[in-house]
């Protein structure tokens, strides 16, 4: 075994220097793979500070290093994203200094619609997890916006559709931020527009829109792809001005639809969402106005009716007083009884008070009364005394005038007169008496003849019950005693 390789003609293997062979390989590779299309899944992605984009393209067994230089990045249809199935186009180069090779990609596309949709789904999930689609962050669209900001292409039919629809419903001021709505520039420009509108200070009334519409007409998923880009989605979610997304047709859904505050199926629909129909509101206002006028008229009518009603009562006070009057009557009826109770209660009360007062008060009252009485008694006595004196002196005066002789004389003549009268009277009385007695005798004889007694003398009898004469058998009462009177007396049967 030789340890030293010597220049030996017997061998036909040429000898290379390292740089030599590297250069050789480089030229071989770059010659053979100067333009290739590689399909694979994107692995890790790394953006260098220089702006170059480094990433892996892999399959189950192998990994291919790929790079897109700074100047080429904006030319890529898609930004490389881990897990994305792509077709990368470019040339393979080698780095002799590191014994490495890589694919310099100048065109990167999603490998088929299925892969694109899968990527979209994955991106959506990620953004959702990061909270960009949260319902609670959705802002309310003003009912009637003052200024509507529209982010769209100034050329397309989309803008004029929106403006027409606005005019039909509720004419509003509109400010347009022109953007490219397709291709690589789309996402960046739309993001700038959203940021730009939000940067207008709130104090600048009339310049800062109070609602934004991001609009684009229909197109393929690739045409609309700009509105699926993460940068736009995040910008939409972060906007402090509420946003209506209106991308494509009703069936097209982009990721900004999830981040927007409202998704409109079409640009025209966005115009319908952003303003109410003015004439409807006017009609509604008119009907409210009518209701207001009606109700106030009614309120006053009711009050007026009530006033009239009450006024009628005023004209007839007795009706107004009917119920109080009834009450008064019932109270008046209850009054005496109540009064009695009250008096009794008071009496009881006063008796208890009097009990306390009696001894002292009565004593005082008695003393006063006694004094009064004494005073009066004294004065009356004095008065009587003086009266008596006066009468007595009058009497004395009269007495002097009455003499005994005159009295005696008067008496004698009076006695004479009396005697004469007496005589006359007895004479007259006698005559009268005799005459009367004669007539009596005569009358009594007559009475005797006529009386039933003479009939009894002749043998008849009279039946008595209860001192009544019984003249019929029907008058006899068995239970009563019957008396029979004969000429010589009565017999009790």
């Amino acid at each position, binding site marked *: 075994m030789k340890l030293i390789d010597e220049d030996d003609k017997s061998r036909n293997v040429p000898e290379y220097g390292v740089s030599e062979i590297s250069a050789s390989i480089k030229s071989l590779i770059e010659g053979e793979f100067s333009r290739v299309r590689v399909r694979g899944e994107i692995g890790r992605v790394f953006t260098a500070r220089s702006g170059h984009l480094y990433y892996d393209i892999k399959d189950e067994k192998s990994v291919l290093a790929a790079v897109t230089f700074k100047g080429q990045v904006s030319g890529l249809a898609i930004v490389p994203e881990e897990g994305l199935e792509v077709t990368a186009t470019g040339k393979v180069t080698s780095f002799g200094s590191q014994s490495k090779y890589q694919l310099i990609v100048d065109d990167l596309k999603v490998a088929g619609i299925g892969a694109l949709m899968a990527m979209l789904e994955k991106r959506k999930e990620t953004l959702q997890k990061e909270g960009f689609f949260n319902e609670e962050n959705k802002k309310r669209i003003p009912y009637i916006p003052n200024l509507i900001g529209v982010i769209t292409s100034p050329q397309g039919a989309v803008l004029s559709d929106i403006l027409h629809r606005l005019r039909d419903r509720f004419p509003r*001021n509109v400010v347009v931020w*022109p953007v490219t709505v397709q291709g690589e520039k789309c996402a960046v420009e739309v993001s700038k527009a959203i940021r730009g509108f939000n940067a207008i200070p709130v104090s600048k009334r009339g310049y800062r829109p109070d609602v934004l519409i991001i609009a684009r007409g229909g197109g393929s998923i690739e045409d609309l792809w700009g509105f699926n880009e993460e940068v736009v989605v995040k910008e939409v979610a972060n906007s402090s001005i509420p946003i209506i997304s209106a991308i494509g047709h009703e069936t097209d859904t982009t990721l900004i639809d999830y981040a927007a505050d409202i998704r409109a199926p079409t640009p025209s629909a966005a115009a319908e969402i952003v303003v109410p129909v003015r004439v409807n509101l006017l009609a509604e206002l008119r009907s409210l106005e009518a209701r207001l006028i009606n109700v106030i008229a009614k309120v006053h009518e009711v009050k007026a009716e009530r006033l009239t009603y009450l006024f009628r009562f005023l004209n007839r006070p007795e009706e107004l007083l009917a119920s109080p009057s009834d009450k008064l009557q019932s109270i008046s009826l209850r009054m005496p009884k109540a009064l009695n109770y009250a008096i009794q209660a008071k009496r009881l009360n006063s008796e208890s008070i009097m009990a306390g007062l009696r001894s002292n008060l009565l004593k005082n009252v008695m003393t006063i009364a006694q004094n009064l009485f004494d005073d009066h008694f004294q004065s009356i006595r004095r008065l009587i005394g003086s009266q008596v004196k006066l009468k007595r002196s009058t009497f004395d005066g009269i007495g002097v005038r009455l003499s005994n002789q005159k009295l005696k004389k008067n008496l004698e003549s009076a006695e004479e007169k009396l005697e004469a009268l007496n005589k006359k009277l007895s004479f007259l009385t006698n005559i009268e008496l005799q005459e009367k007695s004669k007539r009596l005798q005569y009358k009594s004889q007559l009475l005797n003849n006529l009386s039933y007694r003479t009939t009894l003398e002749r043998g008849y009898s009279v039946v008595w019950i209860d001192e009544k004469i019984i003249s019929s058998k029907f008058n006899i009462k068995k239970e009563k005693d019957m008396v029979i009177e004969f000429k010589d007396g009565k017999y009790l049967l």
Partner: protein
Amino acid sequence: MTEILVSEMSFEEAMSELEEVIGQLERGNVPLEDSIKLYERGAELKKRCEKKLMDAEEKVQKITLDKDGNSTGAVTEIERK
């Protein structure tokens, strides 16, 4: 509740208060004096709503952008077709 001046109210605010005022009147039991006050409030709110509805400008402007796609602060009127 802090009173918002009717002249500062948005259309919806004025409209909803107007409905409330009418509702209050329609429910009845409002003293005469209050009913007059409510009516006056309602009339004022109605006027505010009306003003908001009548104010229907339709100017359309376009933001002027510089080469980087940022606003220059200027606007141009867009002619409506």
